[in-house]
């Protein structure tokens, strides 16, 4: 039998249930894989003792016939989710040594369902970045390389540790978060599947906040089915988050095999951006052809305000971040750099604790919210957000069930290749994903092939609010047609 970490999450679940191996064995294989893969820098903290303790509980539950939905399945947790008694850094020096005395709603749901925690995964600082190069704990290296090259490639971001760990088979699945594309872009860059559910599907309680009206948690895994299984556990009502909806969680796994017969898939013409590589256009056309062959109707649609989503995002997200990150003051938790007075304490602590990208965004946010600029920037951006949402509503009102787009404007780039003085160059990575956050919709990235250099490319599907089920069905059809992408050779082990 092949190594246990080559199984998908659903296969591992079924294998445990059939007692072909124990949760302890499954966990040990993953712990060993994590240890061998330190060159990827995917984990900020490894928690093998805790993993083995949880696995032992799982083995007892399985023996007693009381297996829970994720019983004994080893996962990685993005280090943005607060974990009780386990250091949580958000990838920032300012939270160094922070040990929460509470558990985030999403991770509490995972432990309730029997999952095993392998450790805390690296990320861009406070989830601000598209390449995992802003983490205070170093860059994450993608397990993927260009054909014939050993140049280091970024895994995408901000959930770069989650995507790299899942792609390299260090865990069966991982939690992630998405404010402008932070689940879907790294999933596309690493040949994995990632879904950002509808805003309100997962509780944000206990997850370090970046931009509260945009942040959503979701899973990254190696298959569409695995994502469906994980999301079913992560999601659910929570009285402690007033924006978390009181809707029952559907049977996402059942939706995976629904097929696309009779569905109408929209192709938004505005996503054909200037300078889009021919490979991306070809992949997109291929995706539409696969869905058509499987019985869907393809329809060109228009989302006229698409081009304004990214600039509006770079007002709304920094504005909310500047407010959320005001709490890091050197008084209540984390880093403290002394000064003679309280303002000096704040200023020194925040200067030393925040990295460059985070400071930049806090300052932009402070500026657009400041007296005299609030209406010109922030209120205008929120009006444009209304227009973006109306575009989607109009498309769905015309009978479109889901929208197909490329996930990213290119394949992954090399570490350091986008370190120019213009931050906007990096921001353009999220041009296809950010509209979804602005409108609060669900979006899934699914691998669809490799580029000419051998790096993965993904397609994105955008759904109606609270209709993740259709996304799982359509994404499965693409996964079936594309075939699973060939795994990177484990050069790191």
């Amino acid at each position: 039998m092949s190594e246990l970490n080559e199984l998908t999450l659903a296969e591992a679940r079924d294998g445990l249930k059939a007692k072909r191996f124990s949760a302890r064995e499954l966990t040990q294989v993953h712990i060993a894989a994590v240890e061998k893969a330190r060159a990827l820098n995917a984990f900020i903290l490894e928690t093998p003792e805790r993993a083995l303790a949880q696995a032992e509980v799982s083995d007892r539950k399985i023996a007693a016939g009381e297996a829970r939905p994720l019983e004994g399945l080893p996962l990685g947790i993005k280090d943005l989710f607060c974990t009780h008694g386990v250091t949580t850094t958000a990838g920032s020096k300012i939270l160094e040594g922070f040990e929460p005395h509470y558990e985030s709603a999403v991770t509490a749901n995972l432990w309730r369902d029997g999952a095993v925690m392998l450790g805390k995964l690296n990320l861009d600082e406070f989830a601000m970045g598209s390449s995992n190069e802003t983490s205070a704990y170093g860059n994450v290296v993608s397990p993927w390389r260009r054909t014939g090259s050993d140049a280091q490639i970024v895994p995408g971001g901000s959930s770069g540790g989650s995507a790299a760990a899942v792609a390299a088979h260090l865990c069966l699945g991982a939690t992630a978060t998405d404010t402008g594309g932070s689940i879907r872009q790294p999933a596309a860059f690493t040949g994995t599947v990632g879904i950002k559910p509808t805003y309100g599907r997962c509780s944000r309680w206990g997850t370090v906040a970046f931009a509260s009206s945009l942040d959503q948690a979701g899973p990254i895994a190696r298959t569409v089915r695995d994502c469906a299984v994980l999301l079913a556990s992560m999601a659910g009502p929570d009285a402690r988050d007033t924006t978390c909806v009181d809707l029952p969680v559907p049977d996402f796994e059942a939706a995976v095999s629904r097929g696309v017969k009779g569905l109408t898939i929209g192709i938004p013409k505005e996503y054909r951006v200037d300078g889009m590589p021919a490979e991306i256009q070809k992949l997109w056309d291929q995706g539409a052809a696969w869905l058509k062959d499987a019985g869907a109707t393809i329809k060109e649609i228009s989302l006229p305000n698409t081009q304004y989503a990214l600039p509006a995002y770079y007002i709304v997200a920094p504005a909310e971040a500047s407010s959320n990150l005001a709490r890091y003051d050197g008084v209540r938790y984390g880093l403290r750099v002394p000064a003679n007075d309280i303002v000096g304490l704040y200023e020194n602590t925040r200067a030393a604790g925040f990295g460059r990208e985070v400071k930049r965004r806090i300052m932009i946010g402070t500026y657009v919210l400041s007296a005299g600029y609030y209406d010109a920037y922030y209120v205008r951006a929120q009006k444009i957000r209304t227009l973006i949402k109306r575009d989607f509503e109009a498309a769905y009102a015309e009978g479109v069930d889901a929208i197909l787009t490329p996930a990213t404007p290119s394949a992954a780039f090399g570490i350091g290749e986008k370190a120019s003085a213009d931050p906007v160059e990096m921001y353009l990575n999220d041009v296809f994903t950010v509209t979804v956050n602005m409108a609060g919709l669900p979006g899934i990235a699914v691998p669809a092939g490799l580029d000419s250099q051998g790096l993965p490319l993904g397609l994105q599907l955008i759904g109606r609010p609270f209709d993740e089920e259709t996304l799982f069905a359509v994404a499965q059809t693409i996964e079936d047609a594309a075939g699973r992408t060939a795994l990177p050779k484990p050069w790191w082990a």
Partner: protein
Amino acid sequence: MSVDAQTVRRIAHLARIAVSEEDVAPLQGELNAILAFVEQLGAVDVSGVEPMTSVTPMRMKKREDVVTEGGRATDIVANAPETEDHYFLVPKVVE
């Protein structure tokens, strides 16, 4: 719109981030690159459009106005850099 060096210093102070003199010029360039990028929003006709206040149509959840939690002072100060008797310590604020 673009920011000058003086505005960069003012924003940094409002954001309570100490910025050294040699960092002002690079920050000014980066902030102006972002502001130039968002400038295109000025071209959009937003007359009569309501600003978004809730991304999914929902009524805010309410609960009974009763105490649900408390008595966790030890937990709350556990991660603070400096505390005394369940108080956070800061430099003298009031003379």
